[in-house]
Every structure is written in C-alpha cells, then in structure tokens.
C-alpha cells in the first residue's frame, strides 16, 4: 500500500483522475504477453498516467524520497515482464505522451514522445516519403518508448538493424528526478562522438536506468519498390545453406524469414487459401530499392535458391506480395489454433543463434516438442538467427504450465550452448534474468555498478535484468 501522503502529492501533480487506484483498473496493468505475468498476480498499488516530462520528474523525485518502486509502461505489449510491477509500487503509464513534437525531415530526423505507437509514427511519416525502419510484429500497438527501452527490431533488421541504430538522442528522467538530454543537449546533428555514448546506454536498458520522455530519431526515405522471393525446401539444412550462399553472393535482402513445417501447418490450418505446399521449411526474402535493383536482386536470390530447391517463386506485384507475406503474417496468430483447448504462450520465444545454426536449432526445437508432448510452432528471422518458438498449452492446466517452463528452459540453454543468446529482440525483464550470469559474465557486474550509480535506492523497475544479484 502506498502512503496516503505520497498519494496526495502525486494527485497534486497529475490530478486525481490520472491516478488509477481501483483494484479492477490496477489489475489491467498487471501483465504483458509473457506466460510469467499471466500465472502471477503482480498488481501495482497505483497507476499514474503522465503527460509531461515535468510530471515524470516530480513523480520520480517523490518515489525516490519515499523509496517506492516505479515501473514505466507504454502499451504493455512486451514478452518478458519488463513493464510489470512485480514488487507493487507505481506503474507509470506513458502511453498518453504520444505526440510527434517536430518533423525535421531535411535533416532526416523527427522528435517524438515515448507513447506514440509505431504504426502511427510510420503513418505520419509516409506522406512525406520517409519511414522508421525497425518493424516489430507488434507495430499496431507497441510504443516507441518501449522500442527504445528494449532495443526492439523485427523482420527487416537484416538490412536495417535494430532501434538503437536510429536513436540520435534521448531526454531521460533519472531515478533521482534530474532530467538529462543524451546525444547533445541542443544537437540536431546526425552523428556526434562528443562524450560517452549515453544514448546507447539507455537504449535497451529496459526502464531500469531512467524514464525516456523524448526521443530524437533518425528516419530514412521509403524505398521505391519492394520484391519478394519465396522458396520451399525439403531439408532444413538446405534452407540454412541457401541463406549463407545469398550473403556470399553479396546480396543483402531487407528481410529473410523462415517458417518450418510446424509454422506452415499452422498457417495453412488458419488460412487454407494460402495453399502452402508440403515442405520442411519455407523462406521468404524481401528485397527493396529501385525497380531495376529489386528485379536484379530478386532474380539473383531465386537463382541461388535453385541450387538447393526447384520450388522458388519471385514477385514484385504488390497483390501477390501481400498474399505471400500473409503466410508469415498470420503464423503468430495461427500458432494457438493448432490444438483445440490450448493457447500459445510466450516462453523461450526469442532465442537468437548464429545464422548457420538455425536449421539445427529448429530440429532441436521439434525434438523438444516431442519430448514434452507440447506442440511448438516455430518461425523467425533466419537472416539474423532470431527464432520465435511458440509452445501451445492449456493455461488452466497446472501440469502443462510446469512442463512448458522446463521446455522454455531447455530452449534457452540450447541457444547459449550454440553461442547464441536467450533474447534477440524481446528483452530480459524477469523471464530471462536467470540466464544473465552465464550469458554476460563480468559485464553483468559492470551493469550492476551502473545501476547503483544512477539509481542508488533501486526504485526504478527493481529486480529486472538480474541487476540485484544474488
């Protein structure tokens, strides 16, 4: 329970109407997509909806004074409990800070508030001929603040990289209430090496070091054209070899996606019109650029794929492009439908392994599915080795929950054994904190020292990312 005195002070800052105290209201801020948040009851004591940097600063100052945990939250679309207030305290809802503050397109940049939804930003940029390239599957609902906090990416990271490559500077409220601007207090420069890269420090810090209240980000011109190559493989290994061969052929597609047998089956069950053939895996290569370039790249990719399979198709027809991408688009949704009375859960869902290891990882995941008798639908970004495994269970069944936890653990350990990581783009939060000692080694200790320096009273998103140690 929050001290009445503190509550009163917070109400004075944001108004009582922006302080959600009713249990039913708070209950709706107790989760993200992770299984972990679903099976726990981590309800915040108070939800505060903020509108300005000043409000955030005052609240953090107060929370620091009263030693109350504060957890920043955008749309709550994460998968690792990053925005879940597992120690109670205050959930800071930043989704209302959703404005584009300035367009500076001659200078390839815009300044936005953290609550703006990814798709809304790109909708606003499109008429000007620009876009913000990282493209998470949650584009329709996730916020830019969340993307910065978790350094999110998506299908096009093969060519365009992750969020951090586009963040030029941030306004951050520190846990003690001071407001800083990284990347230069008044800078509009596209690059700068003045000082430590504090921007890089905050990107991916999962709301443990500061609350981002303003983002200066780089945008790019929208490519003139896009094309797609689709190839079906009878052997998983062949699909992995094709990808490597394409890089060797000096080609850089904007996206390379893989769906294994399980994913193709799920997509086919959900949308039979897709008419997916029988195969061990399908690869989708997206290329973009000028019309001439797109045709050249697509033909070359198709040629390379033909060394491994005869079932290759390429198109630059927007209609056909849409149909083919649809198979990849629906697979996440379709996963839960492969078993009656069960649903997809987010656990062990974001490993990233070396590209050449992807076929092996897919095989191993299929074996684990048999071992645990849990259907798993696997798909992902083979172009950067990032795989999304979707176990399907009945969440009302305690035994299945226990089983899937073990399954998730095995998937994570497999990734580490393959010299990969437990998380390619979703984050550590609580769900992967247990692997950080092993994954980060001494770096984790440095992270802990940084945390201590910036957040001496450990009020900001405490207990996440293994920052508290044993």
């Amino acid at each position, binding site marked *: 329970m929050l001290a009445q005195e503190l509550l009163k002070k917070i109400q004075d800052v944001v108004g009582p109407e922006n302080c959600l105290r009713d249990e039913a209201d708070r209950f709706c801020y107790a989760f993200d*997509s992770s299984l972990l948040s679903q099976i726990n009851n981590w309800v915040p004591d108070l939800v505060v909806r903020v509108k300005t940097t000043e409000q955030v600063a005052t609240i953090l100052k107060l929370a620091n004074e009263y030693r109350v945990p504060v957890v920043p939250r955008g749309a709550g679309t994460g998968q690792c409990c990053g925005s879940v207030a597992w120690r109670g305290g205050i959930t800071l809802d930043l989704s209302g800070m959703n404005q584009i503050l300035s367009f500076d397109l001659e200078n390839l940049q815009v300044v936005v508030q953290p609550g703006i939804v990814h798709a809304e930003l790109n909708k606003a940029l499109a008429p000007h001929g620009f876009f913000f390239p990282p493209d998470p599957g949650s584009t329709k609902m996730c916020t830019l603040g969340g993307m910065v906090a978790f350094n999110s990416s998506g299908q096009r990271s093969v060519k365009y990289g992750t969020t951090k490559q586009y963040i030029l500077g941030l306004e951050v409220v520190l846990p003690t209430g001071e407001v800083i601007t990284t990347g230069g207090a008044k800078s509009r420069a596209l690059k700068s090496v003045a000082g430590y890269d504090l921007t890089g420090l905050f990107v991916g810090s999962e709301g443990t070091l500061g609350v981002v209240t303003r983002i200066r980000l780089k945008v790019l011109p929208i490519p003139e054209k896009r094309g797609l190559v689709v190839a079906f493989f009878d052997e998983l290994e062949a699909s992995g070899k094709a990808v490597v061969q394409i890089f060797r052929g000096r080609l850089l597609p904007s996206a390379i996606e893989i769906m294994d047998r399980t994913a193709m089956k799920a997509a086919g069950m959900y949308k039979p019109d897709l008419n997916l053939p029988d195969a061990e895996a399908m690869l989708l290569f997206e290329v973009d650029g000028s019309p001439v370039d797109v045709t050249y790249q697509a033909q070359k990719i198709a040629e390379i794929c033909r060394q491994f399979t005869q079932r290759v198709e390429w198109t630059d027809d927007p209609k056909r492009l849409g149909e083919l991408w649809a198979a990849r688009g629906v697979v996440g949704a379709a996963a839960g439908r492969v078993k009656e009375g069960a649903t997809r859960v987010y656990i062990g869902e974001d490993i990233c392994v070396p590209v050449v290891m992807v076929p092996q990882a897919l095989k191993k995941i299929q074996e684990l599915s048999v071992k645990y008798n849990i259907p798993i639908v696997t798909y992902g970004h083979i172009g950067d080795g990032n795989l999304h495994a979707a176990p399907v269970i009945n969440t009302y069944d305690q035994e299945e929950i226990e089983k899937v936890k073990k399954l998730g653990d095995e998937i994570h350990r497999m990734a580490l054994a393959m010299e990969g990581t437990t998380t390619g783009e979703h984050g550590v939060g609580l769900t992967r904190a247990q692997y950080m000692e092993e994954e980060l080694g001494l770096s984790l200790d440095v992270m802990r020292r940084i945390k201590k320096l910036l957040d001496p009273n450990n009020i900001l998103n405490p207990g996440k990312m293994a920052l508290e140690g044993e």
Partner: protein
Amino acid sequence: MAVDKNDLNNLPRLLLPCVRCGQCRSVCPVFLAKGVESDSPRGRMTLVRALLEGKLKPSDLLNEKLQQCLLCRTCVMECPSGVHVDRVIIAAREKLAEKKGIPLKKKVITRWLLPNLNRLAAFMPAAALLEGIVAVRVSGGYYRPRLNLPLVGKRLLPSVGGKRPEFLTSSTGGSFSASSAGRRVVFFTGCMTNMAYPRVAGAVVEVLRRHGVEVVIPKELVCCGLPMLAAGDRESFLRVREENIKVFKKYPGLAIITACASCGSTLKEYYAGGIEGKVYDFTEFLLGEVDFQPPRGVVERKITYHDPCHLRKAQQIKEQPRRLLKSIPGVQYQEVKEPDRCCGFGGTFSLSFPDLSQEIGITKVQALMDTGADTVVTACPGCMLQLADGLYNRQSAAAVMHVAEVLAAAYRAEERQN
C-alpha cells in the same frame, strides 16, 4: 449459421486464446477515446477471467468497464488469436446480472419498453402532439429535446408524427401483404425502424415490390432481443425470441428480410428453430436472391457510405450496399476514410453512456464530413440516428439515408421519367 449461444458455462474456453498481445488496443473505439487499459478489450478479457477465477469481486467499476463495450466487434476482426470478445462480454454481463441484478433503467427498456413496442405504436399519433412542446424541430424530420428526456437525454430524435406507411400503422391490427406476385418474404422491421424510421421500412417494401417480391410484415413480431442480450438479460431475450420464432413458424420456408444490421446479426447468430440460413440483410437479398434490376432513374447526390459494425463485422456484408449505391445513375460515390470505424451508437450503450457515445462518434462524423458528401448512407437505423445527431451537432447539412431509401428514390425517379 444460427445457433443458441449460451456462453456462460463456456467462458473459460472463450477466454483461453487471449495471449494479451494488445492488438485490440489499436482499434477499440472505447479504448481510443479513453486510453485506460481496463477500457481495452484485452483489459476486459482480463477482468472477466479474474472475476471467474475469484481474483476480483464484482464492483461498480468492474461492472462499468464491462458495460462500456459497444459490442461492435472491431477487436474481434483484429484479434490474431480469434477471441470472441463480444460473446465473452455478453456472457460476463449475464454473470454480473446473476449476482447484482439488472439496473432499473435497463430493465425498463429490456423488459417493458422493447417487448411491447409494437403495441405502443398505437400511441404514436398522441406522442406526435407532444413533439413540438418538448422538443425543437430541426431539419430532416428530427427534433432536438429542449430538456434532458428520460432514457434519451438530449439526443436528436426522429419525428414520430410523420406519415407512417400504411403497413406499419396497421401493425396494431393485422398483417399486410405488399404485392401478390412472385416470391414471398417476411420483413422483420425491428424496433428502430418501426419507431424511428418508418420511412426506411416503406422504402424496403417499395424496392422489394419492384422486384416482384411479396412482403409480409406480421404484426406480432417483437424486438429481436439484442438489447436484452447486451444487458445480460438472457431470460428476457429467450422470451422475445420464442415469441418471434412462433410467428416465423407461421410462414414456413419464407426468407426473413432485415434492414437493420443489428436485428440481422441477432437473427442470424442467436436464433434457431428453423430459420437458420433463411435470414437475409436487405442488400444481401437484393443482390443474391432476386434478379436485381438496377434503377434507371437519376439521383443526383454525392454519397458516402458508413459500414454498420453489425453488417460488415458480424455478417461480412461489405460490397453489397456499395454495389447497390453505385448502380444508381447520378450517384457520385465517395469512399470515406476508415469506412468501418464504429459510429459509437451501440444501441443501449448510447443511452447508458451518452457522452462517450458522442465522443466516439465525432471521429466518424468528421471523416464523413471530410468526404464532402451531401448524403451519408448506411444500412442500419441505429447508425442513422447516431450519425444524424453527430452531423447536426457539427452543423453539417448532410442528409442521412438508408440504402433502401436511395434505391427507392431512384425507382421513383425512373417512374417519373417513364
């Protein structure tokens, strides 16, 4: 497919697929207006599950959150996991009603007013006398109440004093057949059409007659029951459904036509008793069941079309109204931005939460006005009322019409030409 959806015992299974991805946040009209997670479909699903699992007790706020859903199904269309949010909400309201009872205001509507509406039609001429006293007449045949009226507040109301088609005035005494040749159909007019927009019923009959269809409007038909379902009052719903099915049984094998998206979806989804597969929206029937004769008369109007949620999302009827409108000579058709965005009416939702209903409507109305159309057409009398109110409040002179009315106008013009 018409099934008896009693989802109350089914709730755990209906809730299971929700993975809390939050995609519904991007489309829910209530969430977009309010911005609080408990106003998103994902939030509501969480509340229902917590209620079922005993983690939350029924409270005023929880009740309000579960009542504050338009049942527009925009989230259902968007949901990657296929959660039937509308069915969960209906069942959850039933559960709450079991525990807390149904509020008096809703009871008055669902248990007394709507089941007896056809009988009340006899009092319409008397009510018409009051119109000029309690309300101010505005253009388009509407009245604006001078004071907050019971149930409806200050919402724009269609005149009840206008000329009613003969077959509707006779709804208090004997059924009426409109033609004697060709196919026979039953026309389920529904409360909104019957009371607020008799002119729509007139147009429907007129257009069907043009196609040689004999239209029967049985006087004993009552409310389709959607307001009762939406209020969690299944008992009352079952009562009106039984009454209606009894009437339908008198006309075995006949197609049942609706011109109200909400009535249509309810009859298609929540009815059984032999009418499965026989219910058609007016636009669906014209283009699928008879040899549609495009009108030759000219209607000089710049038209835009609003997709009623219960037509496009519940019945997957999207193209038919557009094709009908575009078939009319002289019509200049302009698609609106986000044509399937909910108007915010939601039936009794607009009575329970008038301000929120209007706020949600503003986005829709503005988009309609931005098209520059002089006529806003839709296929649901509920949407018509909401849009007329919204357009009036924003000083727009655009007329609001039902697809059937535009078609009827074209056939009339054709007759004049001949």
